[in-house]
Structure formats: C-alpha cells, structure tokens
C-alpha cells in the first residue's frame, strides 16, 4: 500500500519537537515506532501534513528509579521493557501484558508511549478508503452515523492497548509535555470515553514519561484473541495485588478501560468484581467475536486473572 504525501521532520529534543508541531498549523503527527500510525496513514484514516520523528530523543529512551517510582521514558520499546529486570520482579501484570502484545518483532519497534496512545479500533473503521466510502463515513471518520449500532449517538470503537490496562492496575501516571508546559496526570484520566477522540490531549502534547510506583506486586494479565500472536485484544483483563488489596482493569471493550477495586482477597469480593465487570461491559458487534461472548468472557477472564494473581502471591 502506498503512503500519501507528507513531510518528514526530526525532533532533536522534546522542546524542538513541540516547536516543529507549532510550526505545522496543527497538521503534524508525532511518530515514534510507527506501528500504529503508519497503517492508519496508509488507510488514509490519518492524513498528516508532516510527521515529527521522536525516536532520536535520547532522554526518552531511559528507564530509571526516582523517588519511589519507576520512570519509563516514552521511547522505551516494549521488548526492552519486557526484558528489564525490575519489571519482571515488581510488576508481573505489566510483564505479562507486554509479552502478550502483538509479536516479538513488533514489540522491538513499538514504544510504550505509542502503545498507550494508539488509536481505537473498529471492524468497520480500520478499512481501506474505497471500502469506507462505499459504506458511508461513521462518526470516527467525520460522518453523521455509527455503522455498527444504528441510531447510536456515541462511537463504540475499542481501545486495544494491553499495557495501559496493566499500568492502570499498577496506579501509573503519565507526564505530558506540550506548548502550554508540562503536566502529570493519572493514566486513567487520559481517556475521554469518546471513541472519536479517545484521549484528553491538548494539541501538540507529547507523552514523555510513564511513572509507576515502585512497590512489589503480584499480578496477571488475561487476553482474549483469535490467534495467539499479532492480534489485538478483543478483551483484556489486568490485575495487580499490593498489600492485600487488588486493582482490576478491563479493556478492549469500548473507547476507555474500566478499573475496579478489589477490597480484599476473599472469594466473595472476587465474585462481586467479576460480576460487576460483566454487568458494566458494553460490547457491540465491532470485532470478529460476538458481543455476547465477549461480555460473558469478561467475567471468566476477570476470575481467571485474579485467581492466578492470588496464587502467585502465596
């Protein structure tokens, strides 16, 4: 597939990348690993005037410990993070979700920042321009309707990052830098809940760092997909348990992940959370698996993940 015309610019540091964005009249996109952006551009789902390459920014490639947190630069690839000693030792849920992301070759290219900020997906959205024109544009393409749910007022596209789920279960935060300065927010506050524009990002903002509180945890990640490699999750459940309390995060259904607290590690608390997750899941028929099956599997995978996380803790 041939790419449309755009310009290529390279950011030497965060400030110069933001300056390049400001000079682009809002028509530029940031490029890190490119495993999400380039396919979107090939399908003409994104038509930037220029891409700003962030890969050369060295400070964003480091993993360091500071003030009780593990600070992960946004340019660290998923494979580098997966093979980092501290991740395996402290954050098993994150290790499992990194391992479950796509395949090894793409893990070596894709970055953690890009993985968190990947666009939401839909069976009727990630298609060629001809296909989409024949069907008629939906909300996410700038149209006036949803092609999956007739008369819907919202977009139901799915957020398909594996690692955002485990990071939310670990109470992670993200640092953003933009034309108006830096800010730090909790990862779950990054999501707008609207599939058309899934992130609460201001124009020109770059995700620079992910902060994870450095506290030993037990955890697990369960992923539902058709093939055991390369596929995006059709449902993902991450669980992390710290100090006898757990946090569950369910994603892959709808534009924002949902987090639940596990009061204690009793069987009744587990049942309650799994039932609640199933009750609140709103899958629609925009993936290769049926919505009914995905809804049922929400409960199954939540129970499975929590049980596995508890067993590891013993």
């Amino acid at each position, binding site marked *: 597939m041939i790419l449309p015309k755009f310009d*290529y610019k390279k950011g030497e540091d965060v400030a110069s990348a933001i300056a390049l964005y400001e000079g682009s009249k809002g028509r530029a996109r940031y490029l890190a690993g490119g495993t999400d952006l380039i396919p979107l551009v090939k399908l003409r789902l994104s038509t930037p005037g220029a891409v700003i390459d962030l890969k050369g920014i060295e400070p964003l490639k480091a993993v360091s410990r500071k003030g009780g947190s593990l600070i992960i630069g946004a340019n660290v690839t998923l494979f580098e993070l997966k093979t980092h000693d501290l991740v395996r030792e402290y954050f098993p849920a994150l290790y499992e979700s990194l391992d479950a992301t796509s395949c090894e070759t793409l893990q070596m290219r894709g970055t953690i920042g890009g993985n968190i900020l990947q666009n939401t997906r839909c069976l009727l959205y990630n298609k060629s321009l001809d296909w989409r024109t024949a069907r008629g544009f939906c909300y996410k393409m700038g149209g006036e309707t949803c092609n999956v749910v007739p008369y819907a007022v919202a977009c139901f596209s799915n957020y398909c990052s594996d690692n955002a789920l485990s990071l939310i279960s670990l109470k992670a935060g993200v640092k953003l830098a933009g034309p108006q300065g830096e800010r730090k927010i909790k990862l779950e506050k990054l999501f707008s809940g609207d599939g058309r524009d899934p992130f609460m990002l201001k124009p020109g903002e770059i995700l620079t760092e992910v902060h994870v509180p450095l506290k030993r945890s037990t955890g697990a990640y369960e992923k539902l997909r058709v093939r055991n490699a390369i596929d995006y999750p059709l449902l993902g459940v991450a669980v992390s348990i710290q100090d006898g309390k757990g946090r569950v995060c369910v994603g892959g259904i709808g534009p924002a992940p949902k987090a639940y607290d596990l009061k204690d590690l009793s069987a009744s608390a587990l049942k309650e959370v799994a039932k609640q997750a199933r009750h609140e899941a709103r899958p629609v028929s925009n993936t290769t698996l049926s919505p009914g099956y995905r809804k049922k599997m929400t409960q199954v995978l939540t129970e499975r993940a929590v049980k596995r996380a508890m067993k590891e803790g013993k």
Partner: protein
Amino acid sequence: MKTIKVSFRVNDEPVAFQVRPYETLLETLRERLDLIGGKEACGMGACGACTVIVDGIPLRSCLVLTPEVNGASITTIEGLGKDGNLHPLQESFMEKGAVQCGFCTSGMIMTAKALLDRNKRPSKKEVVKTMSSNICRCTGYKKIIEAVLDAASKETSKA
C-alpha cells in the same frame, strides 16, 4: 514536496539517495536497490514478509520510513550468504522442506537470524514464540520451526 538526503549501509555497502519523505524502506530497497527479497504482502505490519534487520533488530520494512534509518546498518536476505555459499539458515530451510511458495521465506529467515544472533541456542518454545511474528499461508509452521532449530544446532556444533 522536498526530497531528503539519506545515507546508510546495506549488506556492508554504503548507499546514499535523495528520497521522498513518505517513502518506506521496503520501497527503497526494492525499487532503488533492486533488493527484491523482502516482499510486500499485507503492507500493514501484520505478516512479516518484509522483515529486514536494522542495527541488529528485525523490523517490518513496510512500516519504516526511509528517512528514519539514516545512518543505520541494514541486512537483507541478499546479504546473508558469503562467497557464494548459503547461510546455514537457508540450507536448513531447504533441507527440512520449510519452503513452499516462498513468499514468506525471506521474512522468516530474517526473523530467525535476528533470534539466533541474540540467542545462539534457543529452546523450541523460544523459537515458536519468535517465529509467531511471521505468517505463512502454505506449509504450516512445523517444518519452519524444525529448520530454525536445525540451523541453531549446526551453528553451535561448529563453534
């Protein structure tokens, strides 16, 4: 749109071009250098038929813009054999019948080479995991896994 000057090494030979900013590495390799071992199948980074090794890391060249690899060192399937001899992986793929139509093979071999470069003696499980990065639509994967394990055992017995 202005072209961009890039220079990098391909199979140990330096090359330099003025490329379009939206040109992919796969296009550059195939159309400017005539290195047609890497194939475009899905064009979306899912299948792995376009895999080449850039600075020791296997990459989907259909997802990489040529300006991104400025200054890098690239190995393609054409650069594997030395002095008219095939690379052990290529020999093993032939011996074990791991090739049918051959469209995925160059990508498979490049992914396998990157694995053997960082892990001389991988277990079967590790090979299966790494090779699941690539898709083959004809032979199935059993013979491909066997071929990679065979090449690994031959290499280590030689050393």
